[in-house]
């Protein structure tokens, strides 16, 4: 187990370097000049532009910029925003907000998604199954921003059940609506995946054995079926964290949540490279760590991996 973890950890290093390099190149090589853009349509003073460029290190060759950036990064220095603030400060304000939002969303996703999927899987081919299938198809078809406005319009503006804007991100009641909207898409995928693995594993030979052993149905489903069926579902939830971040850009915008999604969106609009690269770097790290945890969890759940 220890060696397995160590091997997975080593494999993550090239991916981390590669991914950060890629986002760095995307930000710095693609056309568009963020410094010049600060002046908008007005004429810019070339001397000022050159000075700013030098200040942000944009006059260096890209590879040198990347190496400098990485070296600074490991000392905790993520660079400065165009507004002069430390990127790390901006991030430490925004990350906890998104973390709470995402955790709440994942909780909703797991409870509702696995519940619905298991229900449909056990009733495969019956009306409940078709109902869940069509419902999840619909949820997948509604883009997050449409769903967000709909939910806000109906649940907050019209019915007044939930607050439309998030003032205090530590208040779970306020955070519920955006978390719910954020969770819906992944929830639908989780429900469908759970349904498929349940229906598939129901026909597995070991299920017939469990039946032949005279085990009660509760035990057959709760121990033999669930354990095998959750393995792919957990993997999916792990790989889906990146999707949550994308969704957070939309949801945070609609519900005015001051999290990482809003921060990123503003940074992208203003081509503020230091913030984009900083946030994405942290995100990549978070995703890699989550994947590692999922891998280890996978090994705990599936002994065939552990001893491979």
């Amino acid at each position, binding site marked *: 187990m220890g060696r397995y973890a160590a091997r997975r950890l080593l494999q993550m290093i*090239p991916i981390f370097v590669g991914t950060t390099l890629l986002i760095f190149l995307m930000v710095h090589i693609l056309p568009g000049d963020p410094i010049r853009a600060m002046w908008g349509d007005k004429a810019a003073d070339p001397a000022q532009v050159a000075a700013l460029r030098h200040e942000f290190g944009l006059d260096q060759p890209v590879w040198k910029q990347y190496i400098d950036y990485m070296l600074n990064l490991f000392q905790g220095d993520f660079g400065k925003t165009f507004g002069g603030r430390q990127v790390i400060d901006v991030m430490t304000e925004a990350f906890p907000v998104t973390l709470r939002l995402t955790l709440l969303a994942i909780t909703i996703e797991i409870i509702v998604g696995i519940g619905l999927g298991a229900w449909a899987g056990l009733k495969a081919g019956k009306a409940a199954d078709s109902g869940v299938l069509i419902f999840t198809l619909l949820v997948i078809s509604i883009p997050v921003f449409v769903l967000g406005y709909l939910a806000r319009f109906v649940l907050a503006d019209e019915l007044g059940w939930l607050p439309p804007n998030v003032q205090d991100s530590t208040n779970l009641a306020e955070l519920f609506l955006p978390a719910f909207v954020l969770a819906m898409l992944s929830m639908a995928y989780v429900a469908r995946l759970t349904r498929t693995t349940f229906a598939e594993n129901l026909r597995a030979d070991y299920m017939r054995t469990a039946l032949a052993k005279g085990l009660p149905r509760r035990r057959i489903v709760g121990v033999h079926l669930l354990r095998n069926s959750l393995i792919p579902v957990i993997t999916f939830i792990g790989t889906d964290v990146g999707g949550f971040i994308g969704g957070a850009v939309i949801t945070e915008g609609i519900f005015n949540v001051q999290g990482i999604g809003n921060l990123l969106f503003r940074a992208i609009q203003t081509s503020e490279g230091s913030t984009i690269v900083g946030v*994405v770097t942290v995100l990549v790290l978070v995703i890699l760590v989550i994947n590692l945890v999922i891998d280890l969890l996978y090994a705990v759940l599936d002994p065939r991996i552990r001893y491979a």
Partner: protein
Amino acid sequence: MPDTSSTTLTATEETAAAPADVVKTEQRKPRSLWGDAWFELRHRPMFWVSAILLVILLLIAAFPGLFTSADPTKGDLTNHFLSKPELTHFFQPDWFGYDGQGRSIYARVIHGTRNSILVGVGVTAAVTFLGGLLGMLAGYFGGLIDSVISRLTDIFFGIPFLLGTMVVLNAFTDRKVYVVVLALTFLGWTSIARVTRSSVITAKQADYVTAARALGASTTRMLFRHVMPNALAPTIVVATIALGGYISAEATLSYLGLGLSEPAISWGIDISEASKAIRDNPHALMFPAGMLTLTVFAFIMLGDAVRDALDPKLR
């Protein structure tokens, strides 16, 4: 399954030797994977619902003039500013009402179809070509080629799709359909590459492929005659399902102001504008949003039906 599934086996275990003089019995005709899939598809109502929707949507995309004569870009602020829909005026410019610039929402919904479908189909085609090619190379040749392509896939997969695409698109000021297609392809090819790689590896290990290799088939012949047709199904399934997702992604990007740029008509842009006045004028948001959802729904439903038909495991 119990014994019933194996009734069409030819030689039985007991007789061991293949029956040389096979008696003409009324065995049912064996179906191929594709024949079987088509049989499955025909018997699914979901397939027909999505097929009919898609035919209509493709007609609208190809000939928007057939459905409306109104100009989607011409606004009349004095007479039509956010006018309510006239739900009985079928196919008339005021059917769905007017938007905040006095433009016919019905005309805009109709004329927005083409861009959405172009982006969806374009990205799917590009992604299938690029991802399929890389996945096939990695899966078939293995070794160093596989390592390089797989790490590359991991790296491109590592950047959250929507975020990365936003960064790419932000670099362009005039974002035409092809720009959006290329931007979505830039990070979108990874899942197809992964699926193709693993199905090619599976197909490569199949006995008939080993047999073909033993008989001295050339590399290209092996790839295109033996491996590809048998590895194709999972790739097609993933691509079909993803198509709806790309349409959704385009609308999302346009909504954020990073997708198609005006004067191109995009449901995403319209939804974004309508969202500012949603409390008093929900109709301006509902119609483009409904059409967008319907289109994505049609494609996703098709992908779902195709997946069920091509994956015998689920039957």
